[in-house]
Structure formats: structure tokens, C-alpha cells
């Protein structure tokens, strides 16, 4: 683990990515304590106040401090995206590994159904689910998780099929080990690398999907300070107060880049092929 971390940090993309992630994590943990204002405090006189000493990043249409909203909003943006990805990845991983373990016709049936579900694009699936479950961040998490699961199942399964053909799995089957042991102890740990890489990159997709759902009015709901919602709200005032659009967009972009960098870094660090 530490060895992996060192290898990750040795690459520029890994280093920058980890640095950015640390910053984001700090915002999630201490954002609300450090924010200069209450995130929902409205101020009639401060509407669309330009960035300055009062509001470092300016104020929005309610006169709310954008910096404070960003700092507090980190907690309702990044962890939710993270949870959605985690749940989706975990579900997909179990389906993928289970399908690869079962093999044969069961595997075929599971994967074909999985492929069929993948025929519904992720955003559409999320929209349908959110419409069914009702608007809101919690339901958006579920919707994104469900939308991610088939893709993850596919990635996992192809990795798991390799593992399934490894002799140590055959040895375990020949030994008479139970399905639970084989799936969770023999196979899953060995497909973790692709799952972790894929999931890390997908966190950035989740942040984006969240923002898009908020833009379409079905994600986070006002007065939440979720970043995507902030961007979507600010968009209609972008000619009056461009800072309202720029600041949360930049936050989203940085988060997405951070997860992408770490994902790519992990891919390289876990793949010694490049090192001679």
C-alpha cells in the first residue's frame, strides 16, 4: 500500500492529483467551519456583488457569499459523488465477479441482460429513476449508482474472467472451497486494481452527472450549495455576474481533474509494464 502510494506520488500527475484531492478533502471536512459567512444568508444589498474584500469570490442573486457556498458545498458535492460511485462500483463489481465465477450460460444470461440495461444511456437512466423516486440529492445518488453499475459490472467481469482462469482459482475449486470464499477472497482482491482505477475516474463523471441533473432541475435542490446547482443557477445571470458561474465551474473542473489525475496515476503505478 505505502509502496503503491510512493509510486503514485513519484509521477507528476499522481502528485498533483493527490495534492488537489487533499485540498478538496480539506474543504469537505473543514469547509463549513472555515467559511466566512453562512452559506444561505441572503443579503438584499449584496445581490450580484462583484468579487472584493466583502465577498472574495463575489455574491449571487440572493447576495449569498459564493466562497462560503463553495466551501460548504464541497461536502454536499464530492462525498455524494463518491458515495454514488462507490455504491455503483460495488454493485457492479459483485455482479461482474459473480457472473465470471458462475460462468457458462448463467454468465451469458447475466452479461447479456447487463448489456441490455447498458443500452439505456446513463443520464437517461438517471433521469427516469429520479423521476420515479423524486427529485433530490439522495435519489440522485441512487440513480447515478444504478446508472454506473452495469458499466462497472462489465469492466469487472472482463478482469474477473482472467482471474477465473488463473490456476489459484482452479486450485480453490478443486479443493472444494465455497462460492463465497472464491468470489470474495480469491477473485475480488485480484480484480480490485481495475475497479479502483475505473471508479476513481468515474467519480469525476459522477460529479458531472450530478451537475447535469441539477441543471435539469432534478438533482440537488435549492437552497443547497451543491456546486452543479450553483453553476446551473448562476448560468441565467452569467452576463450580470459571471463570477457566479466561474467559481463553481472551476471547483468542479478541479475536482474532476484531480480524480482523473489520480486515476491515471494509479493506472500507471499499478501497471509495472511501463517500467523496465
Amino acid at each position, binding site marked *: 500500500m505505502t509502496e503503491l502510494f510512493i509510486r503514485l506520488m513519484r509521477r507528476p500527475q499522481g502528485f498533483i492529483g493527490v495534492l488537489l484531492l487533499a485540498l478538496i478533502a480539506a474543504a469537505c471536512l473543514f469547509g463549513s467551519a472555515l467559511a466566512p459567512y453562512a452559506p444561505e444568508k*441572503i443579503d*438584499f444589498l449584496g*445581490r450580484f456583488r462583484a468579487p472584493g474584500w466583502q465577498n472574495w469570490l463575489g455574491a449571487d*442573486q440572493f447576495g449569498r457569499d459564493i466562497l462560503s457556498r463553495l466551501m460548504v458545498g464541497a461536502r454536499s458535492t464530492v462525498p455524494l459523488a463518491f458515495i454514488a460511485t462507490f455504491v455503483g462500483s460495488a454493485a457492479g463489481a459483485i455482479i461482474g465477479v459473480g457472473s465470471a465465477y458462475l460462468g457458462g450460460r448463467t454468465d451469458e444470461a447475466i452479461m447479456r441482460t447487463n448489456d441490455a440495461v447498458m443500452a439505456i444511456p446513463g443520464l437517461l437512466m438517471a433521469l427516469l429513476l429520479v423521476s420515479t423516486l423524486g427529485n*433530490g440529492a439522495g435519489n440522485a445518488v441512487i440513480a447515478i449508482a444504478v446508472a454506473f453499475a452495469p458499466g462497472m459490472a462489465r469492466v469487472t467481469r472482463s478482469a474477473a474472467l482472467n482471474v477465473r482462469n488463473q490456476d489459484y482459482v482452479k486450485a480453490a475449486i478443486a479443493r472444494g472451497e465455497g462460492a463465497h470464499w472464491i468470489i470474495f477472497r480469491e477473485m475480488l482482491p485480484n480484480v480490485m486494481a481495475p475497479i479502483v482505477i475505473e471508479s476513481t475516474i468515474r467519480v469525476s463523471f459522477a460529479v458531472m452527472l450530478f451537475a447535469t441533473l441539477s441543471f435539469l432541475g432534478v438533482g440537488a435542490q*435549492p*437552497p443547497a450549495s451543491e456546486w452543479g446547482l450553483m453553476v446551473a443557477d448562476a448560468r*441565467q445571470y452569467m*452576463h450580470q455576474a459571471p463570477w457566479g458561474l466561474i467559481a463553481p465551474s472551476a471547483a468542479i473542473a478541479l475536482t474532476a481533474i484531480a480524480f482523473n489525475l489520480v486515476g491515471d496515476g494509479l493506472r500507471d503505478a499499478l501497471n509495472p509494464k511501463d517500467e523496465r
Partner: protein
Amino acid sequence: MLSVSRRLFLAGTAIGLAGLPRIAFAEAPKRGGVLRMSVDQAASVIHPMQARVNPEYLVTELLYSNLTRLKSDMTVEPDLAISWEPNATLTEWTFKLRPGVTFHDGSPLTADDVVATINAILDPKTASPGRTNVGPIKEVAAVDPLTVKLTLTGAYADLPVALTYLNARIVPAKVIASDLASLSTTANGTGPFKLASYEPDRRIVVERNPAYYDPARPYLDRIELLVYPDRTAEASAMISGEIDLLLTTTPGEYERLVKADGVKALRTPSGQFLNINLGCDQKPFNDVRVRQALALAVDREATVGFVAGGYGTPGNDTPLSSAYHFYKNIPLKKPDIAKAKKLLADAGYPNGIDLTLVASDKPSTRTQLGVAVREMAAAAGFRINVQTMPHATYLDQVWKKGNFYVGFYNMQPTADAIFNLLYTSNAAWNETHWNNADFDKVIDAARVEADDAKRTALYAKAQDMMNAEVPSVISAFFDLLAAQRSYVDGYVLHPRGSVFRLDMVSLGAGAPKRA
């Protein structure tokens, strides 16, 4: 107007009105040209009896005509009817039809068409929203080919106004008899334009009706109606000259449009409002003090800023704005947190109260109002959780059922219409269940009162009652905002929000040539 006799006031006549443009031009409007305009929402229903939203009202107005037409001062002018006359008790009305009017297919307009149309609207099977809005009609009969008599269930002074209702477009009797549903995809009206192509989510094209009853109008050869769902992109299209007219825009875009070259930004005060409906038959809002406390916690001037971007007028908890007749200018309620706190404590909530305010996601101003009220009322002890939901879910689960939610209403043509729509005990959408018998009596009296001064007094009383008892908090009215290229002549932004009169529009100098 006040000096004219009662009979003259209520009756209408076409003499001297028909064919006269509402605005005097230095030169006669130029004929010809193509107007390209945009709406932010598809006109997905062109069936005149089933249209529900402004783009749909626009299309049916282009293709059809009513008996009467609402002017921008909210009075009535003749359309297909050239004159009308009530009986002494205001329970029977006789309408004279304009001679020589033909439908798009060439068949002549007769009294039978009017009878069939009104009967179809009143038929519950048609499921027309107009059914409760065209007036208390009991019976409709053709007296002769150009005379229609409407018998009402009771006295009603506003019938000519009610007949301007957006679903009361006259359609041919033979279509009603054979296949009324065909009007969902085809059109056969008496309007100034004919339907040329219909792709609801992309573009609707109408062309001049050469057989329109007014030979001078319409001025335009063709109108192209484009669907631009994104308001920001729509405004950009206006600024770059892609479109000539956009029907409605947001305060943010309006400010950009005001500054743009070649663009004339339009603005008019209206009676369109957001209200916070309080269920007066349930705890906690069955206690008038709680309602009053909330009303006192809201800063109305600030609400106009937050919700309408400053483009609006403050409201005083009555649905009438200065755009209405019979509007009474009551001094604006000032926020008084201390008094609100006391009222709340008196009502049994000394430690404040927890509430969930539901707002549908369309239009987004509903949520904005919720967010603003939440923050403003917090000081008085209201701990409000704003819950946003999809409009469809809201309609299904909350609307008319909830006891604390944000409503949104267009301006109605008359005071009677808005009171009877929302606040009387037998209102079509009695959301608040205020059920105030005294109030009902005042409205009923005003409805049959023909004397303008007495009516004014009655409606003033009604407004005072609402202001005092607060069945719903109405803190802001919106101005309607729109924009046009400066070469577009004759377009007037109508405060009703759903009347357009594009037959009056022409293209002046500098208009681009469009094929």
C-alpha cells in the same frame, strides 16, 4: 367610460373599431415579410379547446378568433361578434355575428358554429380547461344565422370578457360533429393566419389568411415560431438577429437585451404572481395569527428583487395588481419581525414553528421565492424546509391538497375571474379553503353589480379582507419581459401574458429579407 350608460358599457359594437389599428402610425404599416420568433416551450397542443400554455394560446390565436377580444387595458372589443346586448337582469345575452366571415376551408361562419363550439367546450368529455372559464352559461341557441343567444345560470356582468377566454376560439360545427380530435393536428379557423407546417418541438409556420375578415390585416406574409428551450441561448439568438421577437425572458437576460444594439426590450407590469398558499382549514394556518405573522415576516420590496430581479411590483396579499381594474392601493405591509414573533407566540408557538414549504420546479421562481421566504421568515421563528419537486409530481400530490406550497398564476382578465378562480368558497381551485362567507357575499354582489363605482367599493372591501386575513401570502407581481428587434412594428406586450395580436405586427425599415 364612467359616464356612458350601463347599457352602452356592457354592450359592444364594432362601429368605428373594426379595422382601426390600436396605435396610430405615422405611415401605414408595410405589408409582407416573414417574422421569425421564438418561444421557450413547445406549442405541443394546437387544439384550441385544449391549449394550456402561452405558446399554445399564441398559435390558436393566430389560427382562430373568439367572439370578443381583450384589449391591453383589459376592456373588450369585437372580434367575430360585432355587437352584443344583455337583458335587464344580465341573464340573457344576444350576440350579433360579423357577416361574410369564412373559415380557412372557405365555409362561412354561422351561428351554428358558435353554438356547437360553446356546447363542445361545456361538454365534460371534451376536457377543455375553458369549461369553467367561459362564464355561467346554461344554454346557447342560434336565433338566426348571424345571431346567437346565451342564457346564463345567473346574472353575470362580465360575460363578454369571459368569452375572450383562451379556449373559447370558434371552430366549425361540422368538425365538432365529425372529428373534434382532428384539431390536434390540423387547423380550420377564422384567424388571420393559416397553418402551414406543424412540428411541435421544433417549428410551427403560419401563413397569411387572404380571406381574413379585415382586408388590411394581417400585415405579415408568414410567421415562423421556433422552439428555443434555453433562455440564455434564446436571448443570444435575439441579440445576433436570428429572431425578430421573443415572447418572454428572464430578468437576467432582460438586462442584457436592454443593452443590445438593434434590440428593443419590452416590459409591462402584469397581474402575474407567485403566492404562498396557506391551508386555512388545517393546523397551524387555521389560526389567522400564524398567517398574519408569516405575512409580516416577508419583506415585499426585497421579494420583488430576489424573485423578479427587480422587475415587478410588491404585493399586498391580494391577487390584484395595479394592472387590474378595481385595484385598491392599500399601504404596503412592512416587515415587522417583533410583531410577527408576538403573533406566533400568541398563536401558541413561542419557540417558533417547523414547516415544509413545497415548490414545484417550474418555473424556477417558485423555488426562489421559497428560499427567500425561508431566510426572511427565519427571524420571526419560522423554520422552513423548502422542498422542490417535479411539476408533474407537484400537480399530482400537492396542488390543491397541500397546506403550504407556492402557487403561480397568470393575470386573469377580470377581478371576478381571479377571485372566483382561487379564493371564494366555491372557487374552481379553492386551494386555501379560506371559505369566508362574508367574502363570498362581497364577490357575488360585485359580480352582478353594473355600477362601476359600487363595484369599485365592493372589490376594495374584498381586497381589504384578504389583506387582513391572509389566505395566501402574495408578496410580488411580475412584470412581463420580452424583446423584439427594433424594426418590428406594432407589437404590444399585453399584461394578460397570453394575448399577442401578431396580426397588428409589421416589419419596418431594416428588417432582414427572409425567404
